[in-house]
C-alpha cells in the first residue's frame, strides 16, 4: 500500500463521514442535500464493520491466521459498552430501579453482580472493551500458537470459541440479559442517543478511530515486524530456523487485532441500540471473512472497502429481495474464492511485486 493510497483512503473515510454529518445536521430536511439520520447510523454501522474487517485482515492477510471467531471480540467490546449504556438508564427503566437493569429486576436479582461493578464509568467501560477481548485473545492465542495449532485447525477452534460464547451468553444466569441482550439505551456520556447530533458525533468518532487504526495497521505491516509476519504467514518453519519465534509475532497481532475489534464493537452498540448473543454466532465471523476476501486480503484498504461494499449490497438487497440475500451472499463466497482470489483491489493491482525501497 503506497503512501498515496493511504492518504487517499484516510481522506475518503474522514471526509465522507464529515460530509454525511454536515448534510444531516445543517441541511434542512426539505433540502435535496439532506441526509437522514438513518443513513448516518447506517454509515456508522458500516464503519464499525470496516474496523472488524481491518482487524481481521491484519491477522488473516498478514499472519495467515484465518480466525472464524473474530466477531466474538467485536461482540465482547459491544457488551462492555452495552453494560455502560445499561447502567446509564438508571431509574428510567421499566421497573425504575436505580441500580439494577430491568432484566435483573425481572429475574428477581437483589444486587448487581460483581462483574457489573464499575460499568457506570465510561472510562472503565472503554477500558474493558479493550481489555476483555485482549485478554481472551492473549490466553487463547498463547495456548494455540505455542502448541503450533495453525491452518484449518485454528480456524475450527476459533469457531468453537465463538460458538461456546454464543451458548454462554444465551444463558440468563450469565447476567448479560440472556436471549434479549442489552437494549433500550437512553444516553451516552450525558448525550441523548436519539439526538441527530449524537448520531453524527458517533459517526465522526467511528471514522476517526477507523482512520487511526488504519494508520497503526499500516505502520505495523510496513515495519520489519510486518515483514517477519508475512514470512511467518508463508513459510512459518523457515522463520524458526532463522531464529524467530513465530508464536510471539502471531500472538502480538492476534491480541492487537482483538483489541481493535473490541473498540469497533464498543462503537457499534450505541449506534445500533442493541447487543445480543446472536452477535457471537459463527456465521457473523465468517461473513466478516468474506468482506476481507471481497476487498482483497492482505491489503488493509481492501478489507475496509469490502466491508462497506458487501454491507451496502446487503442493505440494498434485503430491502428489495430479502429471500434472495442468502443466495447472493453464498454466491459471493463461491465466486470470490474461485474467480477473485485477490479481491476487488486485486483487479486494479499492478502485477509487479511490491518493492520495499
Amino acid at each position, binding site marked *: 500500500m503506497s503512501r498515496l493510497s493511504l492518504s487517499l483512503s484516510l481522506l475518503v473515510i474522514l471526509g465522507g463521514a464529515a460530509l454525511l454529518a454536515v448534510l444531516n445536521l445543517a441541511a434542512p430536511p426539505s433540502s435535496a442535500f439532506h441526509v437522514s439520520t438513518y443513513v448516518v447510523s447506517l454509515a456508522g454501522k458500516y464503519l464499525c464493520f470496516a474496523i472488524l474487517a481491518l482487524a481481521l485482515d491484519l491477522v488473516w492477510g498478514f499472519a495467515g491466521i484465518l480466525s472464524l471467531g473474530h466477531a466474538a471480540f467485536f461482540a465482547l467490546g459491544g457488551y462492555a459498552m452495552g453494560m455502560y449504556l445499561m447502567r446509564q438508564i438508571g431509574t428510567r427503566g421499566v421497573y425504575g430501579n436505580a441500580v439494577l437493569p430491568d432484566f435483573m429486576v425481572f429475574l428477581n436479582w437483589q444486587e448487581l453482580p460483581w462483574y457489573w461493578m464499575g460499568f457506570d464509568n465510561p472510562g472503565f467501560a472503554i477500558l474493558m472493551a479493550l481489555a476483555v477481548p485482549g485478554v481472551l485473545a492473549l490466553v487463547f492465542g498463547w495456548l494455540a500458537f505455542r502448541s503450533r495449532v495453525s491452518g484449518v485447525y485454528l480456524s475450527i477452534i476459533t469457531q468453537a470459541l465463538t460458538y461456546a460464547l454464543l451458548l454462554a451468553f444465551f444463558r440468563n444466569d450469565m447476567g448479560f440479559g440472556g436471549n434479549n441482550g442489552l437494549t433500550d439505551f437512553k444516553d451516552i456520556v450525558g448525550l441523548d442517543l436519539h439526538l441527530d447530533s449524537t448520531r453524527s458525533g458517533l459517526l465522526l468518532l467511528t471514522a476517526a478511530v477507523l482512520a487511526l487504526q488504519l494508520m497503526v495497521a499500516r505502520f505495523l505491516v510496513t515495519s*520489519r515486524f510486518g515483514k517477519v509476519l508475512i514470512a511467518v504467514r508463508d513459510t512459518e518453519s523457515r522463520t524458526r530456523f*532463522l531464529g524467530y*519465534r513465530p508464536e510471539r509475532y502471531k500472538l502480538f497481532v492476534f491480541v492487537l487485532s482483538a483489541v481493535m475489534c473490541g473498540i469497533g464493537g464498543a462503537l457499534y452498540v450505541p449506534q445500533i441500540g442493541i447487543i445480543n448473543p446472536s452477535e457471537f454466532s459463527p456465521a457473523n465471523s465468517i461473513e466478516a471473512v468474506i468482506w476481507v476476501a471481497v476487498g482483497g486480503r492482505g491489503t488493509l484498504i481492501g478489507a475496509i472497502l469490502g466491508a462497506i461494499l458487501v454491507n451496502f449490497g446487503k442493505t440494498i438487497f434485503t430491502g428489495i429481495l430479502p429471500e434472495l440475500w442468502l443466495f447472493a451472499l453464498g454466491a459471493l463466497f463461491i465466486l470470490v474464492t474461485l474467480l477473485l482470489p485477490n479481491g476487488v483491489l486485486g483487479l486494479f493491482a499492478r502485477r509487479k511485486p511490491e518493492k520495499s525501497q
Partner: protein
Amino acid sequence: MKRPHSDTLLYLNGVSVSFDGFKALNSLSLIVEKGEMRAVIGPNGAGKTTMMDVITGKTRPDQGDVVFGTDTDLTKLDEPAIAALGIGRKFQKPTVFEPHSVWDNLLLALAGDRRPRFTLWARETSEEQDKIEEILTTIRLKDLRQHRAGDLSHGQKQWLEIGMLLAQEPLLLLVDEPVAGMTDAETAQTADLLREINRTKSVVVVEHDMDFVRALGVKVTVLHEGSVLSEGSIDHVSADPKVVEVYLGR
C-alpha cells in the same frame, strides 16, 4: 567415541530416531571440528535430512547425545534457540520468503534481535545495508536485489538461501543438497562458494553428486540406513567395498 574437546563444534553420539518403528537414524555418531567442512553422502532415505532435523531441533531423537560446542545439549532446545546459538540451515527444497524482495530476505536473515518489540521499531542501519550488499556480491544476485524472491530461478533461490545463511552469521552451516537441480556451471560456482564460506565457518554439506563432493575435496561421511557406513577422504570411501555395495549393489 571420544568426548567433545575444545576443538569439537558438533558432537553426535548414538543418536536414534524412529518413525512408527522405522529407524530413520540408528545409533548415529559424528564429530565435526571447528572450521571443518564435512560432506555427508548416502543413498536416498539414508537419514541425511533427518540428521539435520535432529541437529536443528525439528525432530527430537529417541536416544543419544547431540552437543554443540563443549557443553550445549541441543536435544533440550527448540529451533529458534538453536538458530540463535549459531547453527544455520539450508533446506533440501529451497525455501525463501517468496513475496519478499531478495533484499528483504537477506534483511530478515541478518543477525540481530529477533524479538517483536525490536523488529517493530527497527530501521535499516547503514551497517546492515553494507552487509547485505556484501552478501549480494558473494551470492551473485546484486542486480536482482529488488526482485521478488518467488520469481527467482531454482538455482538463484538456492544461492539466496545460502546468502541468508551467511547473513545469519552462524558458526555452523548445515547445507542440504545445495546443487540439486543446478547446471554444471552453477554446481562448480556453488562449490567455490562453499569453500569460500568454509574459510571462516564450519560447514556440513549433504550431497548426492559425487563430482561435487570430489570438487569440495573434504572429509566424507557415508550414511546408510541411519548410521555411519564409512568415513574418510573421497578416494578412501569410494574404494570401500561396503560403500560400493550400497551404491551399486542390489
